[in-house]
């Protein structure tokens, strides 16, 4: 510890920290631009120059380490003179066009110029001009002349994003920030560069010029997308969400936000929003009053319950729904006598149901990922499914952790991966068994006979060796592993691997409320049907909560058949969508920004939020709609006044921490290797197709991550089919097919074709896994 004195205040701080950190500890503000607590120190803006006793020159507070007995003066004559001098330099080439600038009102340079700038400029020469460049649909660099070259964006790319997409080219006064030769900025974390920019050089394209900072009201909320539960500041004006910024929470999203969380708000203002209840009568849709729509739905459900039987009613919800909605949905369905309710729409293997000890979760606090020294990722498109968890894993790797992956695709995670086993989906369980066997050998432990029969390959051996040498191991199952037809097998194997290393085992939850759905009991008990069963054996009536059947389910083909065959489909949705084909009642409900609710994130943190704005048009919060539907069905126990009352009932007597448990008992291992021989499908859910809101976020849909899905295959597979990359192929699965462009990806294992799910172009196909055929289309060059 070093004791130093800043402006007469005594501060005690560990050695090795810098003066600026000590000053912040003492509550003293030192002006700065390039310094950022989460980035490396560049010391290039020189704004934080302070006077240090015995130093002949002013020193930059951000880069000067503290030494015991140091005396620092942040506002002495020497310091202020230096700071004012730097401010003058920063301003000479900075356009003084604050009224035009989108950053005006929240600009660090503007703020500090008030304190350190002079009222008139002594610079009367020509100003520097930077030619604007195009870097993609999210970030505008139209006003690069405003750049003060602090390089925060560059350092963010290198250190947090994992990829340096912006860099400083040229030198001296000609230095400018640009992307590499007209490349766009495609990182899924790119929006943070806008926040980091202390001036108006990088601005948000979707938000650009639509409002000024001081007009916006700030409302706290929670991200409804991935399972991280990022904290949001939703900024609204005139009952419209104008933009979304991160709310700092060191334990969850730190000060970052993924682009999905940041720009998805455009989907909230989409023209596709459903604003009036609608009923289909004689094949035509009619807008009706709430009363009529709800009575129609209630009557229809009551008729089916009384007639064919309550078990003919099925309820499906997306895991992006709030805890309150999920709770009321299951309560409603159960109150009419059915047990068919599920939110795990993309899951295909339910053999672990009833054998789980609790709700599957991350297995550790989110912040602990950074401290792991061995990470085994099983079946995860980590960067796209969990952008900020990927950043935490990257941080762990940077600190020396070894990452290993077992997966059916080898997308660049932008970090060093020590070992990888890239195999076809049906071989994944076998690879885990190999790792388990090799690990058991290292640890001198005994494993089951079925595991013993696996033949350990070199990749598995290397992974086992890496895991065995770790002290803080994490085995994490990604979305792909959870959607896998052998998900239960993967879970058992992962659990045993983690147990052998004495490490943590967890699931990277798929959606905002993947844990919450379990707590809300929105899944079948003993005799109910799960999501897959409900669709495989069509029900007479369905209640859909936020579900788009062809995009949100594991097997869209089956889902659509079931929907079309049903007598009554009640769709609660924020959007008009394909449900118009098969639904009978459309009830407009409010997305997360317009309702209060609760999400339970993957580490089991219960986060409630209030509505940021009033619901659009006639839309109403989902919990209210379900509550009234309950009343209309003459059921008791639906007399809630607030969503908090629903939440409290849902969680009453529930010890959330005790409910979180990844253990599974009584699943028999079958780890035989691959063998089908036919081409297998590997599906990812593209980052901007994952839920209803992002699918309608216009700017995100223009990014490279949202490009139309291709049929990706290994080059050898392409030549076996006689197809060239870029040609169109017909991909068939079950009854349906899709015409896609074939593309080569030699990082895929052979024998698989990667076709994205959750996208309209592939909605005609069947399950996310399984056998597919690919045929060339003659003369089908795209």
């Amino acid at each position, binding site marked *: 510890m070093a004791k130093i004195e800043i402006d007469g205040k005594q501060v005690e701080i560990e050695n090795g920290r810098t003066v600026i950190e000590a000053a912040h500890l003492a509550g003293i503000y030192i002006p700065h631009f390039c310094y950022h607590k989460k980035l490396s120190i560049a010391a290039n803006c020189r704004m934080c120059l302070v006077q240090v006793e015995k130093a002949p020159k002013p020193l930059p507070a951000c880069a000067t380490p503290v030494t015991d007995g140091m005396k620092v003066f942040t506002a002495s004559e020497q310091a202020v003179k230096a700071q004012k001098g730097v401010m003058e330099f920063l301003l000479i080439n900075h356009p003084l066009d604050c009224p035009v600038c989108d950053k005006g009102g929240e600009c660090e340079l503007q703020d500090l110029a008030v304190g350190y700038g002079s009222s008139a400029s002594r610079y009367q020469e020509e100003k520097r001009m930077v030619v604007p460049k195009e870097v993609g649909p999210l970030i505008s660099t139209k006003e690069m002349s405003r750049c003060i070259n602090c390089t925060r964006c560059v350092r963010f790319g290198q250190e947090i994003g994992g990829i340096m997409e912006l860099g400083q080219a040229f030198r001296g006064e000609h230095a400018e920030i640009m992307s590499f030769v007209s490349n766009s900025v495609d990182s899924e974390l790119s929006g943070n560069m806008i926040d980091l920019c202390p001036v108006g050089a990088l601005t948000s394209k979707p938000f650009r010029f639509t409002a000024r900072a001081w*007009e916006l009201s700030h409302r706290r909320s929670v991200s409804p997308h991935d399972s991280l539960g990022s904290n949001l500041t939703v900024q609204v004006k005139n009952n419209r969400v104008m933009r979304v910024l991160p709310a700092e929470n060191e334990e969850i999203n730190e000060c970052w936000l993924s682009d999905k969380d940041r720009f998805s708000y455009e989907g909230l203002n989409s023209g596709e929003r459903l604003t009036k209840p609608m009923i289909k009568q004689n094949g035509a849709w009619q807008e009706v009053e709430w009363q009529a729509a709800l009575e129609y739905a209630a009557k229809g459900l009551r008729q089916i319950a009384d007639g064919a039987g309550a078990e003919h009613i099925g309820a499906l919800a997306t895991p992006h729904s709030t805890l309150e909605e999920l709770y009321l949905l299951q309560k409603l369905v159960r109150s009419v006598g059915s047990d068919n309710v599920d939110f795990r729409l993309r899951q295909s293997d339910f053999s672990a149901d009833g054998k789980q000890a609790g709700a599957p979760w991350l297995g550790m606090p989110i912040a602990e990922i950074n401290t792991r020294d061995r990470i085994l990722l099983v079946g995860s498109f980590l960067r796209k499914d969990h952008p900020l968890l990927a950043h935490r894993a990257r941080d762990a790797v940077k600190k020396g952790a070894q990452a290993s992956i077992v997966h059916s695709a080898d997308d660049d995670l932008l970090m060093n991966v020590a070992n990888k086993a890239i195999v076809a989906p049906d071989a994944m369980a076998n690879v885990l068994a190999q790792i388990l066997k090799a690990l058991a050998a290292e640890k001198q432990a005994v494993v089951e006979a079925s595991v013993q029969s696996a033949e350990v390959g070199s990749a598995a051996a290397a992974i086992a060796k890496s895991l065995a040498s770790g002290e803080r191991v994490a085995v994490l199952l990604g979305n792909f592993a959870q959607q896998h037809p052998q998900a239960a097998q993967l879970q058992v194997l992962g659990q045993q691997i983690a147990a052998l290393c004495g490490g943590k085992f967890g699931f990277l939850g798929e959606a905002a409320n993947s844990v919450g759905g379990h707590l809300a009991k929105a899944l079948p008990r003993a005799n109910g049907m799960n999501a897959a069963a409900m669709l495989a054996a069509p029900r007479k009536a369905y209640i859909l909560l936020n579900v788009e059947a062809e995009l949100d389910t594991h097997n869209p083909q089956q889902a659509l058949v079931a929907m079309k065959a049903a007598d009554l489909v009640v769709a609660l949705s924020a959007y008009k969508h394909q449900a118009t084909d098969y639904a009978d009642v459309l009830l407009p409900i409010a997305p997360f920004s317009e309702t209060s609710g609760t999400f339970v994130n993957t580490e089991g943190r219960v986060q409630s939020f209030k509505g940021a704005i009033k619901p659009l048009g006639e839309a109403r919060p989902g919990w209210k709609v379900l509550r009234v539907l309950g009343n209309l069905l003459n059921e008791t126990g639906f007399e809630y006044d607030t969503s908090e009352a629903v939440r409290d009932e849902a969680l009453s007597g529930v010890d959330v921490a005790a409910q979180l448990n990844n253990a599974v008992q009584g699943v028999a291992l079958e780890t035989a290797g691959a063998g089908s021989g036919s081409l297998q499908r590997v599906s990812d859910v593209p980052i901007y197709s994952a839920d209803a809101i992002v699918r309608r976020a216009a700017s995100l849909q223009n990014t490279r991550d949202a490009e139309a899905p291709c049929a990706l295959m290994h080059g050898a597979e392409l030549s076996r089919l006689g197809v060239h990359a870029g040609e169109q192929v017909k991909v068939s699965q079950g009854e349906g097919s899709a015409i896609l462009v074939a593309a080569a990806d030699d990082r895929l294992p052979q024998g698989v074709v990667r076709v994205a799910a959750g996208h309209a172009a592939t909605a005609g196909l069947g399950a996310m896994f399984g056998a597919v055929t690919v045929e060339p289309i003659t003369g089908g060059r795209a």
Partner: protein
Amino acid sequence: MEKITNFFKTFLLFELVKGMALTGRYFFARKITVQFPEEKTPQGFRFRGLHAQRRYASGEERCIGCKLCEAVCPALAINIETEEREDGTRRTTRYDIDLMKCIFCGFCEESCPVDAIVETRILEYHGEKRGDLYYTKPMLLAVGDKYEEQIAKDRAADAKYR
């Protein structure tokens, strides 16, 4: 003594004489009544009357949608909405001034970095319904177009004091 003075004042109609003297004085003094609307008082170049939106000589509207006038308006009379125009500049899609709310303080023109919103010398405008005095962007621009010459002259006269 007092009684005696009052007695004489009463009988000699002293108050009457005093009153008539005042009347007489003003009867012959220079008249200051202005015969509005035939006659008008002189106006300074800083007169704060009806608002106008100005254009540049090229016809391009001056307003850049910075919303400083909206922010500074103490009566919350200004309402602005903006968007990015095709050429990448910010322009208003809506610029309303509710003259019923306006207190003619002149802060809006003072805050305007491009001299877009100005107050003209016009004071004899009227509305027949309340809504008539809710001025929208086209109305404000029309005022500006009509009186640009006078506005420009007034700005020039004021320039050296700013």
